[in-house]
Structure formats: C-alpha cells, structure tokens
C-alpha cells in the first residue's frame, strides 16, 4: 500500500510543480477578487416598483383606481385620486377611457407615460395624509405588520414607517392587483454601489444567490475548468509509459494495474486542487459577503471532480493504448461530444415529442375519455380505432404549444383554466385567455360537432378555476366571485354600440353570479375544489380555508372559515375535497389532512421526500384521495383509515395524472399516453387505453432510451448538483416558483447520471487495467 500511496503523492507533487496549475490558480484568484466586492443590503420595503403589480397588470390597476374613484362612496381609489397630482389624475382618466375602448395594452401609449403613473403613486405613498381612518375602514387588513403600524400614534411614526404603512394599506385595498411585499427588501451591492430593489425576501434572495453561485461554479469549474484539466492532464498517463520510467516502475514489487490506478488518482489531483480553491473561494465569499453558509455548495467539489474523472478515465484509456497526449485530448473531446449528442437527442425527444403528448389531465364521463397533454393538446380516446385523436384545436392553443416549450413561465398567463366534461360525456368546456388583451372566453367542444373548438360567451376576467358541480354544471371561481353556467355557453351576447363604440359585457350572459353576500377574496396562492357528493365548495386563499355550501337556488353561502397555521403561506397549494375531509398538498411536498367536523389538521404527511405535488383529486364517496407528484409517483390516502401510502403500481415514477372513474376505480396516465384503469382495492388493471406504438415511439423506446441508459451522463450531473442544493427531485423552469403546481417541472432524476457514469468509468478503467496487465512493454 505504501508504494501506491507514494505514486499518488508523487502525482500530487507533479501537479503542484506544473506551471499551468499556478497560472490557473492566479486566474481563479482574479475571478474570486472580481466577485469579492459584491454584497447585499436589506431595507424596509416602501414605495412601488414595476414588478410589484401582478403579471404586469398596471393598465388594469390604473383603470380600476379611476373607475372606483368615480363612485360616490368613500373608497381608497377615490382618496388616492383626491390626493393625486394633476399629471397622475390626467393619466388615470386617459387610461380609464382606453380601457373602456379595450385599447389598453394594445400599443405602447400606456407604457410611454408609465413613469408618470408610478412616480405619482410613489409620491402619494410618502404622504402622511394617505391614511385616513374613514377611507380605509372597509379594507380588510390581514397583515399583522400593518395592524401594528395602524395601532401606533400616526404622529409618532417615522417617515419610513409612514411609507411602509401606506404601502401595506395599498396592498390590502387591491389584493388582486398588488404583490404582497416582504417587510424588508433586498438589493445587491458592488463596491458599495446599490442596485434597484429586488423582488425577493431574504430567504428567496439567499436561494437566488446560492443559485447564481452554483451557476458560476457550474460554468467555471464544471465546464471551463474540466476542459482545461483534460488538456493539462492528457500527458500524464502517456508519460508514465516512457521506456526509461515505466520499466523501472515495473521492476518494483508493485501491481501494474494498481500503479496505473494510483497514477490516475494522482492525475485527478490537478482538478481537485483547482476546483477546491475555486469552489471554497466562492463558498467563503457567499458566506462572508452574503451570510450564506450553505455547506451543500461544497458538495459541488466532489461532484465536478467526479465529472472530470469520467472524462479523464477515457483520456487514460486512450493514453494506455496509444500513449500519445494529443490522441488523449482528441478522444476526450470526441467522447465529450458523443455524450452531448446522446444527451441532446434524448432530452430533445423527451422535451419536444414525448412531453408534448404526455397526458397531464384526464376527464371521464360515461364512455367518453379525454386527456390534455403537457402542452395543452386535447385528445379523445377513439374506442373503435384504439387510439388517441387530437380534438378541440384552436389557434390560441397552437400558439401556446410553442410558447410552453420555450417560455413556460410566460405561457402560464394564457393557459386554459381547467377542463370540464359534462356528466353525459357530450360537452367539453374550458375558459381560455386570449391574445392580446387577456380577455377570457368560454371555449366549447361538443361530441356532436366532433369536439371542434368553438368560442363561447365571455368569462370573468380574473377566472382562476373551472369546477364541476355534482349535477355537472360548470362553476367558475374567480378572484371577483363565483359564476355558474346556467345557459348555453355558446349563446354570445351581441355587443351594444354606443356612438360607434362597442361596449362588451353587456346584455345577458349564460353565467350567473352565485357568490355569497360576503365576498370571498381570493389572493394567490389559491386553490379550489368541489365535494362530488355534497356540492360544498372549498376555497383556499393564502393560509385561509373557506367552505361554502350551495343553497336551494345554487347560491353559495359561507359555511365556515379556518385559518391554517402555516409556516409559509406563500407556497403554491393543491386542494381536494371529499366526505368531510379536505386534503391540501403544498409545494414543499407536505400533505395536510383537515377534517371539517373538527376544523383541525388531523394528520400530516411528507409522502415524496419533499418533492412538489402536481395534481390532487378526491374519489366520489370521499374514501380515497390521490396525490400525483412531479416525480411521477402517486400517493393514495385512505380517509377512512387515515392512512396514506405510495400506490403499489409497476408504473410508479412514470405517472403523469389520474382521475377517479368510480368509487373504487381510477384511471392512471402512465408513460405518456398509456391509460390504465385500476381497481383501488385489488390494484388490478381492469382496462387499458393504449394505442399501438408509432415508429417514433419505437425508435425512442428501443434505440434512443437503451443507448442513453448505458451511456454515461457527465453533463447531467448538473442535475445532481441541483438536487444537492434544493433537495428536490424536480426543477421548475429557470428555478422559479411559478405559484402553480400544475406547471411542468423537469424530473431531475439525480442519481441516474451518477450510477451510469460511475459504472461507465469503472468499465473503462477495468479495460485499461486489463490492457496493461496483458500488454508487453
């Protein structure tokens, strides 16, 4: 053993004596010095910034202020306009007129004068007279911080406290428009120079900074560093075979394979030294300058050394066979390219072909089975042809498909709000936001019309959920209230023209408002579900669970309100309601069970190791609940036994959605478009809905997937890094929290690249050892 340790130590010394190493260390030092002056500043959140209005809905916000100010009653909007300067007043008036003509947002007029609006509002927020008790008395102030400020003597408040109080009041008055601001806001500093305020709380800011740190490490250590290390170390193994040194080594009482492996380990020292210096440097800077002492970041060191070692194994094998540094470099680069091509083909097929067709929503009524894919394509199962047929196509949907692939965050704004199939399986309904202007309309497809997509009546602008009442009637839940579809959805009202100007939303509509007398305000994150048996409606809105019950006229009345004791009320949530049980599945992966009889949390689970859920549904009867996670796993909860377990299906890990087709049966979408009906008690498959594989699917299954499986995946070890940092097995687009659990997340599958790369590396090193043992030098 002593001999092999000596070889490893010698390789370390060799690395240390390399001039290139010292040049790289100097370059790394310069890079670290470059990021060293960066830091952050935390200050109280006051005033308004452009990103403070949800989804950029500034024109609607301006219009709302103006419209409400025109009413006679005292209101915050009226008060704001009263306090506003002349520029702001003029701007608001102009915007309201354009809004009526539906011209706002169609051109850049609004944005050209936007600074006037923002500046005027910020001027107002600085004024002590912004708060007047009678103006704000009807505004529901939920924030403890705001209540505390309001309880203090107004005259004793500092200017900063006044601005903060005013900001909180504004948020309370316009909850559907304004983002809830954190108490303090973060900004970046560089050499003491401060950036604009960032839309993050400290925890989010830390997460973002850690993410940037990880990106810097990924690019510099994980890409450039590895490339340089491959070139620098390419000569080490071939050099070992120089006649005058290899013969001497072999004359010693050592195993030639172990000598090679010791040399290989020693060669990795080069990467280790550089990566350790850089990663520890970044870690210290994040610690000292940002107060982020995240030990997980240091896991990147063994990870990227491992990535290098995979390439180095290939280089070493080439070195053993050809004993030429140039050949080593060429083979390593070819291998790098091969890994990239195989990975790109696989992820390309996965992303653009497989994901397109993967079902993420299932609807079943009578004999009609319909599914909606990840990119919003609706398909109908043709029992005769035994295949899925695309139906319900529209131009908006086609535009969305491309958008969902390349800009999923933006596309969220335009996604249809749920799909409802009526009880007879004859009519499909959805609410579609249209380009431009974000006007919402009902979209209807009927079996008799071969499910063609037809534009129906206008829908509430801020529609959030489309649900189905037990009798099959669709119910639209919006931040403005509840609307029930009681007429023909295709019966569009004719716009009334006044002096040549079309006035929309006039005349009769098939929707009837059924909201309770005391309106339920829905602020994000929100969720809604209907109890299939009782018709009760459960609404979740930022930590508050409200249960409503329909009366004999189908108007909903508030039955009870439960304030949930949550650590983080900002996280997205999915909701299911069955029997007297409400199941809430949160973004952090935990599932809470509430019993409406006791109004208490009865149980709490973390079924999928903190991974976010995607979909939740209660079975009729309320005995079974299913939660499908973004990892492709499904968890079943038995309400009667108050127990939950990962469902024992062979397809666990490949499930994309499900729906209960009866009290004891459910349909599960697996591996793309395959749907199986399972018996909930026996877990036996009762029926299958799967088309024969096409050529594309066969190529993917029998060619691309096997090659991808056996091929190493060093490039995908970034996913392992991501998993180390977040602890999550899935990743949202650009690592953003989109406030919605249904948004597609990439499955990280963090351990597959580790295992496949490790096995590949061992095989390559094994071949090299075998070659050395058999070769005569």
């Amino acid at each position: 053993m002593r001999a092999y340790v000596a070889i490893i130590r010698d390789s370390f010394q060799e690395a240390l004596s390399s001039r290139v190493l010292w040049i790289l260390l100097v370059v790394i030092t310069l890079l670290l010095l470059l990021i060293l002056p960066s830091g952050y500043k935390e200050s109280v959140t006051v005033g308004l910034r452009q990103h403070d209005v949800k989804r950029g809905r500034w024109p609607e916000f301006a219009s709302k202020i103006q419209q409400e100010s025109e009413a006679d009653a005292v209101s915050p909007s009226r008060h704001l306009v009263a306090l506003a300067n002349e520029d702001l007043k003029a701007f608001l008036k102009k915007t309201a007129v354009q809004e009526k003509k539906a011209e706002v947002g169609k051109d850049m007029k609004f944005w050209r004068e936007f600074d006037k609006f923002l500046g005027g509002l910020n001027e107002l927020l600085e004024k002590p007279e912004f708060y007047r008790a009678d103006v704000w008395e009807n505004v529901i102030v939920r924030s403890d911080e705001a209540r505390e400020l309001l309880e203090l003597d107004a005259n004793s408040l500092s200017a900063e406290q006044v601005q903060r109080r005013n900001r909180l009041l504004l948020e309370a008055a316009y909850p559907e428009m304004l983002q809830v601001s954190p108490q303090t806001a973060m900004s970046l500093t560089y050499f003491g120079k401060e950036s604009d305020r960032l839309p993050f709380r400290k925890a989010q800011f830390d997460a973002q900074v850690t993410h940037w740190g990880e990106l810097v490490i990924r690019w510099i250590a994980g890409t450039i560093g590895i490339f340089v290390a491959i070139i620098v170390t390419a000569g080490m193994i071939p050099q070992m075979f120089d006649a005058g040194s290899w013969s001497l080594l072999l004359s010693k009482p050592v195993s030639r394979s172990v000598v090679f492996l010791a040399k290989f380990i020693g060669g990795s020292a080069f990467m280790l030294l550089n990566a350790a210096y850089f990663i520890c440097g970044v870690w210290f800077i994040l610690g000292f300058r940002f107060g982020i002492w995240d030990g997980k970041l240091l896991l990147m060191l063994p990870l990227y050394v491992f990535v290098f070692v995979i390439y180095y194994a290939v280089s070493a094998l080439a070195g053993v066979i050809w004993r030429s540094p140039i050949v080593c470099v060429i083979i390593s680069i070819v291998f790098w390219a091969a890994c990239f091509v195989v990975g790109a083909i696989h992820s390309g097929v996965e992303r653009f072909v497989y994901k397109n067709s993967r079902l993420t929503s299932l609807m079943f009524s009578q004999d009609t089975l319909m599914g909606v894919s990840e990119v919003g394509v609706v398909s109908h199962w043709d029992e005769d042809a035994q295949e899925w047929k695309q139906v319900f196509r529209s131009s908006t949907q086609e535009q969305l498909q491309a958008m969902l692939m390349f800009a999923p965050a933006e596309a969220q704004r335009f996604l249809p709000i749920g799909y409802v199939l009526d009880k007879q399986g004859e009519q499909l309904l959805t609410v579609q936001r249209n380009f431009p202007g974000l006007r919402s309309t009902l979209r209807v497809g009927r079996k008799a019309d071969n499910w063609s997509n037809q534009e129906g009546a206008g829908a509430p602008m801020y529609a959030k959920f489309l649900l189905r009442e037990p009798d099959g009637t669709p119910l639209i839940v919006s931040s403005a209230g509840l609307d029930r579809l009681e007429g023909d959805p295709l019966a569009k009202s004719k716009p009334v023209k006044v002096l040549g100007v079309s006035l929309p939303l006039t005349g009769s509509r098939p929707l009837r408002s059924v909201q309770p007398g005391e309106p339920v305000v829905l602020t994000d994150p929100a969720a809604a579900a209907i109890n299939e048996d009782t018709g009760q409606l459960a609404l979740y809105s930022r930590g508050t669970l409200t249960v409503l019950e329909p009366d004999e006229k189908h108007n909903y009345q508030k039955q009870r309100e439960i304030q949930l004791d949550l650590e983080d009320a900002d996280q997205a949530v999915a909701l299911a309601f069955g029997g007297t049980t409400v199941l809430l599945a949160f973004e952090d992966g935990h599932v809470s069970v509430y019993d409406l009889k006791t109004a208490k949390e009865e149980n709490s689970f973390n079924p999928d190791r903190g991974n976010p859920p995607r979909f939740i549904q209660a079975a009729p009867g309320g005995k079974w609940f299913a939660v499908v996670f973004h990892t492709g796993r499904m968890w079943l909860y038995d309400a009667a036994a108050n127990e939950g377990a990962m469902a024992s299906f062979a397809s666990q890990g490949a499930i994309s959605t499900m729906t209960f087709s009866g009290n004891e049966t459910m349909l599960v979408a697996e591996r793309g478009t395959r749907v199986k009906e399972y018996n909930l008690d026996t877990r036996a498959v009762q029926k299958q809905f799967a088309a024969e594989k096409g050529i594309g699917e066969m190529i993917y299954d029998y060619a691309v997937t096997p090659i991808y499986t056996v091929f190493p995946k060093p490039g995908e070890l970034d996913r392992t890094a991501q998993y180390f940092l977040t602890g999550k097995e899935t990743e949202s687009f650009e690592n953003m929290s989109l406030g919605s659990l249904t948004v597609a997340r990439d499955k990280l599958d963090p351990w597959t690249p580790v295992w496949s790369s490790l096995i590949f590396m061992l095989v390559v090193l094994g071949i090299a050892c075998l070659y050395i043992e058999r070769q005569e030098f």
Partner: protein
Amino acid sequence: MEFSSDTMDESAAIAVQDLYKTYRDGLIFRKRFEALKSVSFQVPRGEIFGLLGPNGAGKTTFVKIMLGIVRKTSGSATMLGQPVGDRATRVRVGYLPEHLRLPSHLNALGALKLYGKLSGMDSREIREKGMPLLETVGLADRVRDSVKKYSKGMRQRLGLAQSLLHDPELLFLDEPTDGLDPVGRSEVRNIIHRLKDEGKTIFLNSHLLQEVEMVCDRFAILHQGELRSVGTLDQISSTTRDRSEVEIEILGTDTAIKAALETCEVVASEMLSENRVRIVAQMSGQKDIDACIDALRADGLSIVSLVHRRATLEDAFLKIIETETKVS
C-alpha cells in the same frame, strides 16, 4: 561452461533453461518474431556477469523477462530461486534501465524517497541510507536540485543510487556508465567491485566491451536471440581460436630471419631498423614456440623480446558475431 546444461541450479542468482520468447504483432495477420530461442545459462550468486550482443540480439528482452516486465513464451527461468514474475522477489532486485527517465519535478532525495517506497522501504530507512548513497555516487552537493537541472551523467548516478537503495541481492545494470566521464566510469567500476565484495550478484548489460571485460567474471554472448557463448574470457576465447599469436623482436637480416623461420607460420613482419625485425607468428603450443626459438638461435640470430599475445573480449565477440553473420 554450462552452455548446454540440462539441470538448473536453484541456488543460482539467475537460472534459465530452454527459454523462448516470441513476440506477436498485428491484430489479424499476426507477425511472429522470435526474440529468444532456447537460451540456457546460470549466473551463480556473487558473480559479476556480462550479457553481450549486438543491437536486437535479445539482451533487453532477457532482462525484461527476468524482471517480470515481459512474459516468457516457454522454458523455465528463476531469479534468486523463485520463478521469474514473482512480485515479492523483486524486492531483492535492483534495476538501472537504459535511457533512464526520472520524474523531473523531484530532486535527488525526492526521487530516492519515491523509488524507496516503491521497493517497500519506510521513510526512516530511506533517510538513513539515501544520503550516504548519494555521497557514494557523487551527488551529495546537488541533493536539493531539481532532477531537470541534472546532466545525463548525474541522472545516471542518481539512477544507480536508486537501484542500490534497498540493498538488493541482485542488480541489473543496463549500460551503467552511459553518459559518464572517465572518472565517473572508474567510480562506477569501483562501486561494482565493492558490491561484489559484499556478495551481491551483478548482471551487466553493456555495449562497452572493454568496460565489461574490466569488471565481469563471466560473459554470455547473445546473437539473433540465440546464446552463442557463455563463460570466462579465456573460455570464450578458446572457442574462437585454436592457435595463439606470438610477437618476436629479432636482430638479424631479413633474409636470415626468413630462412630460420621457414617452418613457422609467420602472419606479419615489420622492419624496425637495419638488422632489427618484429614478426608475428601463429603457434599451436609451447612446442611450436620452443622449435621456433631453437631455429633462430641455431642460425645465430639474437632474440630481443618475445610476447605471447592474449586474446581480448572484443576479439572473441567480433569473431563470434562475424562467423555467425557469414554462416547466416
């Protein structure tokens, strides 16, 4: 002469019998090349043994087989009583390869430390033995210098030091004086003699026949993979010559001398001055020399000097190689 020995002496430092090595090249149509053919000889312990042969004779292959670097094709070979290839035996063996390349990032002490550890020594042993050894090979004042600053001769000295560090019983030296100046060569010869006195066995592989002749007890000559001769210098010489040469300086006229030596086989004559001639004659033994002297004295010629010429290793080597080449 153990040239055709059928038995192997287990106590010998090196013993090979009927050793064959065939190299194969190419993947499909594999070319065969016989590097060693039925080589058999033994090197007793405590001997300095020289292996000679022209380039491509199979000398390096033989050493590599002994050290386990190359596998033998057939035959048997033992080193220090153990079959060749035995890893544990290599602890007792030192090796100085031809064209030695030492890690250039190390200094002399660092290199000794590395190779000492590879030979199973601990740091304390290496420290204790390293410095005196570097003094012995004349590198004491350059121990801290990087190897890359060393001349070829200095590297060769360091190579010799590493081969001796673990106090081996058997030493393989491949061109040990390569790159050394005459003083250095003399020092190496002294070291080799001292090692012999300590009872070590030294296997020398060199092209410098005079050097080998000066230090080796016995020799083996390899040619085209076959062993041509093994033994002491006299034994080898006797195989190449059946008659010895005698050089005689005579006072007398050229005509008288020629007449007196009519019965002798004169191969060369040189007129040194008037009435003074040096001749070289080939004679089979003492009888021929006595007859020659009697004939000269009988004719009244005076003998100034008589030298019995001794055969050199180079003569024997060239004779063997020449004969073989002509035959082939």
